[in-house]
């Protein structure tokens, strides 16, 4: 299923002559979970259809058979139950890795997430940590039924006590999940479901970032630490800030813009809480122009926070106000209208144009 290719850039990794494998994000996540279960006897995976079925997206495929029904199990159909139970398991010393089947079904569990998971460490003055990694297949783009295409990052990022991360490619998915699941604090892990089946290079021996796909590998991308943002493409004229499935789209946009001589930097934010404000400052400090792209509705979306962080740090040099290209302030629509809703290449290009053509007064 996964072919091995040799990548000269990872020669510095532990493995000596490193093996970079092609795998889909689904495979990368599955492998990460497998290793997490093997490494930590206190890690447990559960949720709706996670066990025998291996999850509706097969992220937990084969894990029950391999690790047993005590480690990977199905729960009754109740999200508040799943998350509330996670709190108790964490209090008993476990590292729960619950799954909410789709983004929109995190809402029934919000009370447990906001008032319990995010606060138990605080409430208990640090005596009851909540090492819970909540996996949420997220965002749209797969022509799914209602409530299966939601973007909840702005909500999660606003909640004190939560950390939030979203990988954009298989390599990051593997490493970020392994990182998240070894933390002592709760992490919401937002998986871009429209990218589950896309393959990409994964270096399991080193977390240092490698580019998203060979097509966009211009040899200049670099990573920095797992806890921060990642420069997915270097550029001089404008920074596109994105996360999840929008990163790949922004890379496409950058390729197109390059044809017109516009050199775009793409910053994959990865961590949506805490946001890597330094990376934003570094990138836009250089490019002096920025557009932030997300699928969630505009108003009170995370784009506002990103834009404000950029404005705060780069005000003196910014050439134009930060633009936001986002979903609209409308409920996520049915499949037929999905492409009208999610920021598409045209709309991102228009946003870039508005920034480039901005003139004061």
């Amino acid at each position, binding site marked *: 299923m996964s072919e091995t290719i040799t990548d000269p850039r990872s020669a510095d990794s532990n493995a000596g002559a490193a093996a970079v494998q092609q795998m889909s994000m689904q495979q990368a996540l599955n492998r990460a979970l497998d290793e997490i279960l093997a490494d930590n006897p206190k890690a447990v995976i559960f949720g709706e259809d996670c066990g025998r*079925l291996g999850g509706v997206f097969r992220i937990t495929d084969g894990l029950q058979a391999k690790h047993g029904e005590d480690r990977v199990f199905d729960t*009754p159909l109740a999200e508040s139950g799943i998350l509330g139970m996670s709190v108790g398991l964490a209090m008993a010393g476990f590292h729960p890795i619950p799954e909410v089947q789709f983004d929109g079904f995190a809402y029934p569990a919000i009370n447990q997430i906001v008032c319990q998971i995010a606060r138990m460490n605080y409430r208990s003055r640090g005596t009851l940590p909540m090492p819970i990694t909540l996996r949420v297949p997220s965002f749209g783009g797969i022509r799914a039924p209602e409530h299966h295409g939601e973007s909840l990052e702005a909500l999660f990022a606003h909640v004190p006590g939560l950390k939030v991360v979203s990988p954009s490619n298989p390599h990051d998915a593997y490493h970020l999940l392994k990182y998240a699941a070894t933390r002592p604090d709760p992490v919401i892990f937002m998986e871009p479901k429209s990218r589950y089946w896309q393959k990409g290079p994964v270096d399991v021996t080193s977390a240092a970032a490698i580019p998203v796909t060979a097509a966009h590998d211009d040899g200049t991308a670099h990573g920095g630490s797992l806890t921060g943002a990642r420069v997915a493409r270097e550029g001089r004229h404008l920074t596109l800030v994105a996360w999840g499935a929008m990163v790949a789209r922004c890379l496409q946009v950058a390729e197109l813009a390059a044809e017109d001589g516009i050199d775009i930097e793409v910053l994959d934010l990865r961590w949506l809480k805490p946001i890597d404000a330094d990376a934003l400052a570094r990138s836009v400090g250089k490019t002096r122009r920025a557009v932030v792209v997300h699928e969630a509705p505009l108003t009170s979306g995370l784009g506002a926070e990103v834009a404000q962080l950029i404005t705060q740090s780069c005000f003196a040099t910014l050439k134009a106000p930060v633009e936001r290209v986002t979903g609209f302030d409308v409920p996520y629509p049915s499949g037929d209208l999905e492409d009208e809703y999610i920021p598409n290449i045209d709309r991102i290009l228009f946003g870039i144009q508005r920034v480039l053509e901005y003139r004061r007064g």
Partner: protein
Amino acid sequence: MTTEPVLAAVDDDAAPLTHHQLRELYTLMAAVRHLDTAAVAWQRQGIIPGYAPELGQEAAQVGSGYAVDRSRDFVFPTYREMGVARAMGLDMVGYMSTHKATWHGGMYNPLESRFAPIQAVVAGSVLHAVGWAHGQTLSGKASGHHGVAITYFGDGASSQGDVHEAMNFAAVMKAPVVFFIQNNGWAISVPTDRQVAGGSVAARAAGYGIPSLQVDGNDVVAVHEATRSAFAHCRAGNGPVVIEAMTYRRGPHSTADDPGRYRTLEEERLDAGQDPLERFKQRLLAEGIADEAFFAEAQRKAEEEEEAIRTGIEELGPRPGAEMFSLVFQEPTPALQSQATAWREESEHV
């Protein structure tokens, strides 16, 4: 501890079903079976992106939907109530449009058809039914003339907190609402015995002082009679009723599902029991209520109907993108209007 609450057997319309009605029930079930099977094929052919088949649940759906009085009752479906919709005479192109990904809630008019928009949140609309039903009480119609709400949900949904809150609210307020559970053995890959502690959703009703009926969900007449008497009980102002129709999801959860991962064909065969359509056919034959010519005609009509619906679905174009904006509010906001303008300029280049 508590004594079992009993259903006030005040079915004011309790005459047994006529032969005509029995044949009508069969015709409906045949239409539903054929349309359901066809919809799965449509998905394979790329006509629709997905579908949630109700194969095996025709008796439960047609039998109950047939009891609804469209002049005063209201139905709260899930995503799998195609048979109820058809039994109530909905515009089936409008209904199926949700599976074409045209519009999430469907394109039929829920107010006129007395069938709420399709609901994708498991247990999402159970409380709506209670609120609607309490509205009937508040409207002060005399007992015996209440509109009744019927809310459909599954064995899986019964685990959701909202179902408990709904049953408790309904019982405290004596709301005229029928909780209609189709226990089809599965919630995606999770079997009922790992889902419903105690083994029966109906059994929970007693804890709220609500009368309940557990009925053979593959027997259309039994389902219909149970539903009819539940409606009569509610209409008379006696408060809610729980019906649990024991049936079986013979197909996959949806066209995206692969039941082979969690049950064998042999298990399916054993657990599913007798096919509800075939079983009803045998009964009608045995009782001399219908003959082979009738069944052939029912099948022909079902095919004709399916063809018309498929044509309608195929002709259904995407909705204009402007509807994304115009249907959010009754009173649109300036902010949203300017987003609509920007969208039009950037996407339609006008």
